[in-house]
Structure formats: C-alpha cells, structure tokens
C-alpha cells in the first residue's frame, strides 16, 4: 500500500522531481559527499588507499591538533573576533539606519547609501590592497598622517597588537552598508500610525526613536544576532587571509580556525590534523547553530530556521 503510493507519487510528480534533480545532485556533490569525508579526521590518510580505504588511527589526529598549541589560540580568536563583529556590525548599521530614516532628505539618503554600500562590492583581495595603502610602514596614509603631525610612524604589519582593532574596523567598513539597508527596510516596515500617534501626544524625536523605533526593531535585531551567534565558530576566511596573508608574525592575534585549517592543508599538507581541526569546527558549529535556533524558537516560533 505504502510502496504503491510511493511509486504512484513518483509517476505523478516526475516532472517536478526531474526539475529538482540538478539541485539535488549539486548538493550531494559539494555538501553530502564531503560530509561523509569527515571520517578522514580518524584516519591516517594516504593517497593510494584514498579517503575510505586509509587505515584508522583513532584520535591521534585530534591529539596532534590539541597538542600543537594552536587549538586554543585559533578557537579563542575565532570566537572573540566573531563576537566583536556581531556587536559592531549590528550596532553601527542600526544607528545609521535610524539616522537615515529620521533625518535624511531623499537625495541625501541616496548619496549616503551609495557611498556606504560600495565596499560590499569589492573583493577581499581588493580590500587587502586597500589596507596596504593605509597601513604600510613606508608609504601608508596612516603613517603619513602620523609623520605629518610629528609623531613616530608605527610598524603595523609587524605588530600583532594592532590587528584586532584593524580587523574589526575593516569588517565594519565592508558590512555597514549592507546592514544599514537591511535595518532601514525593517524600520520602513514599522506602522506609521504609531509615529503619528506619538506626534500628537507631543513626543520629541528622541523619545519617538527610543520608544517606538528601537522596540519595533528589537525582534529583528535579536533574530539576526542569534543567527550570527550560531555561526560564531566559522571564521571569515576572505577577511583574515587577505588582510594578513602568510605573515607569521601576526598569526598569534589573527589566526582563526579557517585560516589554520587552510594553512595546515596547503603549506604543510597535513591532511590528518587539518581534517581533525575541520571536524572539530563542524561539530562546534553544528551544536551552536542548533542552540541558537532553539533560542530563536523560544523567542519567536515563526522566525526560527527550522
């Protein structure tokens, strides 16, 4: 009976199923087969035996990863950077969106939006090149300005301590336009009657922002932040790799799990350890995103991912 239904549906929906086929094959190839490949983390990989034929070696790869001394550094960096990005890249766009909504004449809003959105369109390679123009010791604009006011230039590319600040600023630089537009759309969606009512009651603009705009924006903010928290173990490879490159001097303060895995794979061809680190990241990421979704679900069932 059940089986009969299955075949009947197969015939009935054959066109729709055929239309889905390319997409399904695509995700099997780029996502599900690599998922099965996580067994590599428990194997001593060699080229001849392949992913599934190579001998098991238990937790040796993980032991190696944890004892390398980098595990804690890269985890801490990944999480702390992401937390900083979440705070700055939400707070700044929210402020910008409120101001755009409140003060801007239409032409001014357009101009500002166009200027702020530009960095979003540039590749990370270009961003890396721009950063070089700003921070280079000999010719960079920052040091040019410092020299101009008679201060000592600073050797940014050889000083790890500057990088957390720089990376947060660069990330905000690229993200502020995108975020502002998204939050502006949310503000535009707020019922205008509320504003009119506040006006009649004699509220000033700041009271209006504080009592109407922000509370109405809060649900969107909470959802976006929670979802971002779900990705707190995923580093932004493009940002870190192009800003820092393979400049080992800066690794201590800039190495995240993603760059660590990439370097272990490409520079030292350490398949075992890099796949152990990747597995570690996938599991942590999976758990946090489930937790984040659980929190979203508690807060507002309709906006949960699943």
């Amino acid at each position, binding site marked *: 009976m059940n089986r009969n239904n299955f075949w009947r549906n197969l015939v009935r929906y054959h066109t729709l199923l055929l239309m889905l086929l390319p*997409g399904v094959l*695509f*995700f099997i190839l780029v996502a599900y087969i690599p998922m099965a490949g996580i067994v590599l983390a428990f194997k001593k990989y060699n080229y001849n035996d392949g992913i599934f034929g190579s001998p098991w070696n238990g937790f040796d790869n993980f032991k190696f990863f944890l004892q390398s001394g980098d595990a804690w550094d890269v985890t801490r960096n990944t999480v702390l950077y992401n937390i900083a990005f979440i705070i700055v890249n939400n707070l700044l766009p929210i*402020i910008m969106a409120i101001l755009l909504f409140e003060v801007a004449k239409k032409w001014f809003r357009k101009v500002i939006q166009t200027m*702020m959105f530009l960095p979003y369109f540039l590749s990370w390679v270009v961003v890396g*090149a721009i950063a070089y123009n700003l921070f280079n010791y000999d010719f960079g*604009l920052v040091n040019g300005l410092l020299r101009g006011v008679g201060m000592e230039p600073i050797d940014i590319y050889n000083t790890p301590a500057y990088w957390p600040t720089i990376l947060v600023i660069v990330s905000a630089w690229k993200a502020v336009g995108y975020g502002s537009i998204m939050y502006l759309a949310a503000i535009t969606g707020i019922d205008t009657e509320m504003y009119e009512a506040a006006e009649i009651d004699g509220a000033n603009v700041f009271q209006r922002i504080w009592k109407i705009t922000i509370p109405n924006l809060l649900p969107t903010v909470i959802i976006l932040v929670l979802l971002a928290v779900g990705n707190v173990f995923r580093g932004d490879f493009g940002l870190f790799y192009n800003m820092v490159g393979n400049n080992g001097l800066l690794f201590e303060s800039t190495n995240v799990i993603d760059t660590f*895995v990439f370097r272990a794979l490409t520079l030292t061809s350490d398949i075992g350890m*890099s796949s152990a680190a990747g597995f570690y990241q996938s599991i942590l990421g999976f758990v946090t995103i489930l937790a984040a979704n659980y929190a979203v679900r508690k807060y507002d069932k309709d906006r949960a991912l699943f």
Partner: protein
Amino acid sequence: MNSPLITTKQHQKLLSKRVKRRDRLLLNVIGYTSLSLIAMFCLVPFLLVLSSSFTSENSIIDKGFQLIPSDFSTEAYGLLFKYPNQMLRAYAVTISVTVIGTAVGLFLTSMTAYVLTRKDFIWRSGFAFFFFFTTLFSGGLVPWYLLVVNYLHLKDTLIILILPMLLNVFNILVMKSFMSSIPDAIAESAKIDGAGDFLIYIKLIVPLSKPAMATIGLFIALGYWNDWYNALLFISNENLMPLQYYLYKMLGNMEGIRKAMLLSGVVTNVSLPTESLKNAMTVVAIGPILLAYPFIQRFFVQGLTIGSVKG
C-alpha cells in the same frame, strides 16, 4: 506674567512646538554629521587607491600615498597596458566564468526554488530540509579539497571555478520567498489548460519573477566576479587565473613581474613603479564593477529587502 492674549493651553502648544523644533535640529545635526562621516569613511580608502594609481612613483616614495595626487602621472597604467596579455587573459577567464556561472546558476536556482514553492508537491518539505541541512553541517575544507583534486580531477580546470558557486541555499530561499507571492491560481489555470510543470515554470513563473531574477542574478554575478578563493585552492595554471586571483598573485609578487617585464623587454631599467603599479592593477581589477555600480546598486537594495521578508 503671561500676555493676556495667549491662553495657557496655547502657550504650552507653542512651547512644545519650539521644543520639538529644537530636538529636530539637534537630530539633524547629529544625523547629517555622522552619516557624512561614515560615508566618507567608506569611500576614502577606495579614493586613496584611485589617487595612488595616478601618482608618480617618486612622489609616493617621497610623500607616501595621498588622497590627492601631488604629482599626477599615468605611468603605471601606461606600463600595465604595454604588457596586457596576462591581464587580458585573466579578464577573459573571469568574464567567461561569470557569464556561464550566472546563466546556469540563475536557471538552477529559480527552477529549484519553484519546485519548493509547489504546495501540492508531497515531498516538498523533505527536499527543503535536504537543501537546508547543508547550511547547518559541513564536511569542511579538507574532504572537499581531496574530492576535487584526487577523485574528480578538476584541479586547473574552468569547471572548478564555476561549479562550487552555482547554487547556494540563501539564494534559493530568497527566490522561493519571492515566488511564493505569485498567486497559485496562475499556475493552476495553466494546468487546467494542459500545461506541464516545466512549461509553467518557463512560460509563466520566470517572466513573473523578473525582479527577483535580476537581483539574484546580480548577486551570483558579483560572487563570480569577486571570487579568488576557488582559484587559490585549485588553480596553479597561469592561463586559468581569474582576475581577482591574478591581482592577489601580482600584489604578492612584484619582483616576479619585474623580472617578466625585463625579460620581455617592456622595461629596460631595473626599477619599476611598484607602488603605483599595484594600485593601477587594483583599479583595473575592480573595473567593470565600478562602472556598473551606480546602475546595479538598486537591485541589490531591492534584493536585501526581499530577503529580509522570510517566506
């Protein structure tokens, strides 16, 4: 003390109006200033690159990168276009990858999204979860790298620059939420007239989804244009380097360029305007994006607005 001509109530009203005007003014001052500052902060670093690319090398070495060229020069561009072969090849790779990837990607994204909007399709939620799960859990870089290199043997092929970015779950969801707003009645009446599912998709849904197609298409195209990551992983053949990866290579390897140029006889002296050349290359790599930006920007704004409404 009040003037007898004005009642207390009127007085209060006037007062509140003045207060209101004052807080408006304050907000305007804060708003216009901080918006302008942030907008400048976004634009200035980019202008610095543009200006540096038009500055003579000597001036850069003397005074560093400046926002307004103190010694205007097109030397870097001249040199770049004197030896354009590699750059043109990189352009050709990027353009082919972008065109093919966007066309195929947009077709697959919209077709997949359409099936997922069909409420009568009984396995709809099952497939939706199949796609969605890939955003929750991933096998990571290493298995993917080995799959491509050792099993699919796609290292140093154009395919590997196109394939990984054809589809992504975010685009499918945005497209799906847009298509969900198309009334079911349209597809149903076509069905009664005997149209098949694929025909309905091509003849009815695609034309009705034009705004979303334009937006998603541009998102896909921008992704391909700016991609350097797949090349970093899988391309070592110089003839297959896309533009951004070529720029990445060149920025890190000015010495190599100098040697290549010396060998080919483009430059005869030993020194090369390295710094201005780097900037000129960056500007050329941004190239078309910059020209198209004012026109395409609104589609992205539109896309973000569609995307923020969850369907």
